[in-house]
């Protein structure tokens, strides 16, 4: 199997895990989890230097999922990579679980930063990347922020500082699915023109199809070669991507319930039903 084919298979597996995980408790942030499945597949399938057997390995690459409510997507890829048994995904949000709705670095193996209060994770990622500059190591820090999250002022505090520091070891993705909890980004408080904003903050900016794994892969490779600037890869995505009734729910898919029948349909659509 070619590398890209493997990545696409991983993306499918992540999507299946997301559906399965959220269905296990019956409700969750499924839309914004499915929208980042492809970028997670490219990161863990190819770019990130991590060791599931040694999750705290000092020289590993870091990922901060600043849109912390996408925890189930992160757990789905981490389980697939072998950081913990896949059966554990069924414990999502159950009392005493290691897999809380929002990412917690002290609970889940392979999670590099706690997040959930929006806007903070990007600053944390900037701190992690600064740490690499002090240590002069080759760690790449990745972060995923939400488009709605980009309405938080702290995102731009972090953007300004990272741009001025020229943090070229920091690669950030915006999950630009155009929807937030209360409605569309455009209607509520538009963040466009997004690429111009990041360029104005002295970032190296790309704008691509967030579901095209080949494009994501090539863009990361290209970004890594650009020195002296932090990198922003804007992923144009579809909230709920891969499951028709989730996509169709649009604004309603930020957090929605999933029945056993819907789970079966979703797994079939993704093509991962076993």
């Amino acid at each position, binding site marked *: 199997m070619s590398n890209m084919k493997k990545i696409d298979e991983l993306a499918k597996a992540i999507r299946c895990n997301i559906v399965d995980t959220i269905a296990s408790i019956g409700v969750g942030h499924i839309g914004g989890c499915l929208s980042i499945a492809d970028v997670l597949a490219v990161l863990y399938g190819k770019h990130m230097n991590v060791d599931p057997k040694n999750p705290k390995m000092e020289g590993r690459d870091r990922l901060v999922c600043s849109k912390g409510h996408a925890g189930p997507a992160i757990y789905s890829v981490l389980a697939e990579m072998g950081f913990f048994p896949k059966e554990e995904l069924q414990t999502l949000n159950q009392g005493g679980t290691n897999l809380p709705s929002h990412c917690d670095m002290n609970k889940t193996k392979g999670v590099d*930063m*706690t997040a959930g209060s929006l806007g903070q994770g990007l*600053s944390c990622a900037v701190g992690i990347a600064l*740490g690499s500059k002090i240590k002069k190591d080759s760690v790449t820090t990745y972060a995923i922020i939400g488009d709605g999250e980009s309405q938080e002022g702290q995102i731009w505090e972090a953007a300004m500082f990272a741009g001025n520091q020229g943090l070229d070891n920091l690669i950030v993705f915006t999950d630009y699915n155009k929807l937030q909890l209360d409605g569309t980004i455009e209607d509520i408080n538009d963040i466009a023109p997004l690429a111009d904003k990041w360029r104005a903050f002295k970032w190296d900016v790309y704008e691509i199809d967030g579901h095209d794994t080949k494009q994501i892969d090539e863009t990361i490779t290209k970004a890594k070669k650009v020195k002296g600037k932090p990198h922003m890869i804007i992923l144009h995505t579809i909230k709920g991507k891969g499951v028709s009734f989730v996509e169709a729910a649009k604004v309603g898919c930020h957090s929605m319930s999933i029945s056993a029948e819907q789970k079966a349909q979703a797994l079939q659509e993704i093509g991962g039903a076993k």
Partner: protein
Amino acid sequence: MNEKTLMRDVLVDFLREQMSKDDKVVMVDADLAKCSTTLCLQSEFPGRAYNVGIAEANMVSIAAGLATRGFIPFVHSFAPFITRRACDQVMISVCYAKQNVKLVGTDPGITAELNGGTHMPLEDVGIMRSIPNVVIYEPSDVFEFKQALPQILSHEGPVYIRMHRKNPPLVFNNDIKFDLFKAYSLREGRDATIVATGIMIDTALQAAKQLAEDNISVEVIACPTVKPLDEKTIITSAKKTGAVVTAENHNVMGGLFSAVSETLSSNYPVPIKAIGVKEKFGEVGKMSYLRKVYNMEVEDVIKAVKEAISMKK
């Protein structure tokens, strides 16, 4: 060091010394580095002392990120901007995420003087006390602070340092070995106990001295670490004297009065009177004016002690 030594100089000398020998110690400021004199660290330790500009939330979360890489970041801003403005970042990025960040908040309470109400933190200890597992330390004077700093550095976990930038009156007996987690007695007494923090320790000592002339014997306990509270020392003294006054440069809600009351009410209930700010915002003025406005003068402490004693059964 003497009575003219400034607290901020004790801090910056310590940081310089530590940063010279320990690569893990880093500094993050938010455009108030001249006020804390930590500005010099930015030129002395390029790449290890940052200024993020006027962005306190960013400062605190960046420090948390650095801490995940094994660094021990000190951050500084005025106390209201650490605890109020960046409250959620302190709560989530640092404390909930269990990151080893040292938070320096300067100009506690009325020491904000001429900056006035917007800059006068009267609620910071209350905010910080409600966050699990954070240590809250308000240095009493330069000698105590110097002994406290290495302990703060070696404590694994977040510490909030509520620091007077200038030179509060000397109260600490430097022959004694200071323990960050222990309150200590500055004067023995049998009729009442004053538990005090920060600039109110000297006020309490003056009150105790005057009360002695009236044959009232007052114990004075300095309680620089409000969380975790040294319950044993306070309960032991309350058992001895049977009446307590707390004296703090802070709102009486959520700070020292609350902490001492919570401890004594469930362990050894005695009358407790509070000296501190009561249901008022900060305002501009010099220290002498502010002490009068908020009833934080020696006479107020004397009155409170007499009231507490009169309430004894």
